[in-house]
């Protein structure tokens, strides 16, 4: 009964965002039941901070998935950004801003190169971003001497670390940043010409091209945004951990894709929004934490993670038919 009321009030895309948030709430409840204190303010805050890293990467991934693409270069753009951040700031606040600008700029630039290869050279997104991932890995390892360079062990500037660990009104700055990102990205997608063009390209790139939309330009910008957000996540992560490490970007590739899809963004493009990816990022992070709270061993977590994603996909899929 209530299901059909929900169906009437909310179109399919918004329903999925609701499901994703509901899943997070239910999982929080389960976690609290298993380990009291799980859903305490501290507990929720900690989980949200971890979710924010996935969430930031998912912002970039949302943009490219909306036009039917994908960004497989996330792991090493993120990693490169984190190393670039520490080596150019050398743990000094005075250098933080230039280092920040440089790192985010480089991230955007790499993303733009991805977009150019895809839009202008006709290289499939999977191949282009996969190759870029390798290129960034090689460049990062090579230039840093495998993290043996003198400045590689530097810490992130205290202000960056503070952004992650300290907060305002009990909310860590990184979460405030995430909220700002959420508002900005949602605004961009829903209210601007660029956002509208993104959806039209995702729906039908050919028709958009014939209507005068600059499909190549949009593609390049979207991948640049993806690189930008991967870099931002790398900066936040190095603020969280203090130092950069090799391989820190690896988990975020598949997690970001899963978060976006669970949030109702259609993998072939044209439908969905960032709020869904945020919901997806939070649910996935809570899921992993709950499984940890259950003291579930490594393998169990892996299996449950996969099963939950399949279950949600099947649920969305069945809705697709009835919609």
């Amino acid at each position, binding site marked *: 009964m209530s299901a059909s009321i929900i169906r009437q009030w909310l179109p399919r895309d918004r329903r999925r965002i609701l499901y994703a948030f509901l899943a997070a709430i239910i999982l929080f409840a389960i976690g609290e039941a298993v380990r009291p204190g799980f859903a305490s303010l501290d507990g929720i805050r900690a989980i949200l901070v971890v979710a924010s890293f996935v969430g930031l990467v998912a912002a970039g991934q949302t943009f490219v998935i909306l036009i039917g693409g994908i960004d497989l270069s996330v792991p090493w753009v993120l990693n490169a950004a984190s190393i670039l951040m520490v080596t150019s700031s050398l743990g000094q606040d005075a250098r933080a801003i230039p280092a920040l600008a440089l790192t985010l700029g480089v991230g955007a630039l790499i993303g733009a190169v991805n977009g150019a290869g895809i839009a202008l050279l006709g290289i499939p997104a999977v191949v282009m971003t996969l190759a*870029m991932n390798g290129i960034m890995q090689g460049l990062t390892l090579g230039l840093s001497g495998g993290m043996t360079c003198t400045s590689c062990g530097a810490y992130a500037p205290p202000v960056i670390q503070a952004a992650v660990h300290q907060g305002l009104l009990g909310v860590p700055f990184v979460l405030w940043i995430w909220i700002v990102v959420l508002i900005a990205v949602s605004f961009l997608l829903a209210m601007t010409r660029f956002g509208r063009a993104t959806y039209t390209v995702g729906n039908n790139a050919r028709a958009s091209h014939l209507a005068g939309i600059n499909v190549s330009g949009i593609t390049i910008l979207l991948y640049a945004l993806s690189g930008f957000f991967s870099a931002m996540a790398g900066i936040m992560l190095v603020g969280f951990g203090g130092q950069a490490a090799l391989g820190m970007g690896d988990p975020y590739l598949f997690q970001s894709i899963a978060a976006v899809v669970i949030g109702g963004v259609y993998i072939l493009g044209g439908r969905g929004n960032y709020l869904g990816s945020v919901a997806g990022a939070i649910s996935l992070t809570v899921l992993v934490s709950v499984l940890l709270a259950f003291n579930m061993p490594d393998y169990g977590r892996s299996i449950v993670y996969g099963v939950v994603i399949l279950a949600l996909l099947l649920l969305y899929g069945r809705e697709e038919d009835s919609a």
Partner: protein
Amino acid sequence: MSSSHSPPETVLAASGPRRSRFSHFLVQNVGLALVVALLIACIILYCVLYLVTQHRLPGGFELTSTLNNTMPLAFAGIAQSLVVLTRGIDLSVGGVIDLTNAMAALTLNGGPVQTTLWTAAILGVGVLCGLLNGVLVAVGRLQPILVTLATLSIFQGIAIKVLPQPGGAVPAGFTNVLANPNWPVSLLYIPLIGLIWAVFRRTRLGVSVFAIGNDAMAASSHGISVKRTVILAYMLGGFASACGGLILAATSTAGDATTGNTYTLTSIVAAVLGGVSLFGGRGSGLGAVFGAFVTTMVVNILFFAHIDPLYQTFYEGLFLLAAVVAANVIGQIVRRRR
């Protein structure tokens, strides 16, 4: 209304000479031809570099170790090709290799009979993994990238459960058969794979796989069961991945449930280099095998050219891009010359 007599039968005559059979063969197999040419170029370059640095040509040891090290990727490439031909993608290849590798390390330590039985069982596990993927894609109507993303997680999890710590080992006999360290026995796999692929293409299933990759709707209007074909393609892919896992076990000194992870993305590279189109319907599993060897050759070339190994993936990435762009351009030129 219609005429009472039938006019002489009209014949639509040919307007010019036909292209030669070789020309047709080339057009239909551009991808395969390119990767073979690329592999030959890489082998020559490798030999030259080897000669310059080691003052002799590469010998049996180099051949054998290259073969043995590349074979798991070759099979992963075949697995990926089978799925990509149906217009899908399989991110769980690494997971199946993890799982079968782990199972092999755990179970293959008995006598020949037990080893053979367990090998068959492990191959069966690969098929089951493929079945799961195939059913979810074909019947569940979910996108392949998402299904295999989830099953990757599941298979990896099961692999870790099977072999939580690196350990176990496969018996020497097993290794000697599959990946003999002394003789380039694996060289035999290549013509064998070529033969099997040629057979596959000449079966009803093989034609169906290509057909649905071209145009699933058109294929189904000719009586091809899209669901059945997709499921079988994924099952065969799972089988190929399991072969890769077994060979990986044969070439490793100890079992490890996580070494298969890298094969997911590298299998895509191998398939793409081998001329398999990500849009489906075109390409050869044999091409993926050659693509796997090209990637190994590139690593070897980088090594003997004294390129800092830390930069290895940088050059690999650039190479992949260059190869794809070049293949695009060449493919267009070949087909434009009508």
